[in-house]
């Protein structure tokens, strides 16, 4: 059985189902992060003391660069599908996965530094919200990596059976990946810079 409008644009919404679905999912994700950011503001403005520059800005800046590069590579991977260039798609999807892994490794190094200095979530509300926000974000990166890895492994078959549907799936993944990038760009100034 074929699912209608999985490739074609629906005449009523002007979108295909996968794009509408991912936008709705991203709206719910936005609400999740809004709750966490709201907690951050409550804790920060509500506290009498707040540590400044307690986190390694260099590592965070490097991670920002890595995520921005991964956002570019995932778009190239999607556009390669539109030009029927399968090998280019695989190359850039692999690059995106590699950059995502690099991001997580840098984050791991950052956590290790803090744990070694005994800066645990129980130390103060700053570290509690820092670990919560960055860990939830890192979990989203892991989720994106799992999806991309799945497409890298099983993509050839899907592409052969229904190229339009596969391209739409990669486009939805692209949107999700941009969302994680956007969230990180919000986290960077709030936690590391100011």
């Amino acid at each position, binding site marked *: 059985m074929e699912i209608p409008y999985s490739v074609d644009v629906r*005449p*009523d*919404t*002007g979108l295909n189902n996968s794009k509408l679905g991912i936008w709705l999912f991203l*709206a719910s994700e*936005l*609400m999740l992060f*809004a*709750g966490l*950011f*709201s*907690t951050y*503001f*409550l*804790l*920060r*403005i*509500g*506290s*009498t003391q707040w540590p400044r520059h307690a986190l390694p800005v260099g590592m965070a800046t490097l991670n920002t660069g890595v995520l921005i590069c991964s956002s570019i590579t995932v778009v190239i991977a999607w556009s390669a599908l539109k030009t029927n260039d399968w090998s280019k798609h695989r190359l850039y999807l692999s690059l995106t996965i590699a950059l995502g892994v690099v991001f997580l490794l840098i984050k791991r190094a950052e956590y290790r530094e803090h744990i070694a200095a005994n800066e645990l979530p129980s130390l103060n509300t700053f570290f509690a919200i820092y670990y919560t926000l960055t860990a939830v974000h890192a979990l989203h990166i892991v989720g994106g990596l799992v999806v991309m890895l799945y497409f890298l492994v099983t993509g050839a078959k899907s592409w052969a059976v229904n190229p339009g549907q596969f391209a739409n799936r990669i486009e939805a993944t692209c949107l999700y990946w941009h969302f994680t990038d956007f969230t990180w760009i919000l986290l960077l100034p709030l936690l590391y810079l100011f």
Partner: protein
Amino acid sequence: MRRLSLIRELPVVAAILLVPRAASACPVCFGTGDAPILRGSNAGILALLVVTLTVLAAFGAFFRALAKRAGQFTRAENVVVDLASSQSHRGTVAR
């Protein structure tokens, strides 16, 4: 009828009058006007409101776009129906 509505409203009025004032005090600030926790709560609520209202506005804009599209479809459908009926009418007259 009037008596019935008074009887209905009485428990509500009684509840409002009988609830102690202390129960309606803010459990966060306990009456302190400019405490940091109060300013923090306000900032947190504001941040959440901004995002929620933005998401709601996006949904509203989407539904508005859907309604607009639906209107266009209905108008186009009506034109087709009118054309079809006028053609069939012409055919009947010619016969």
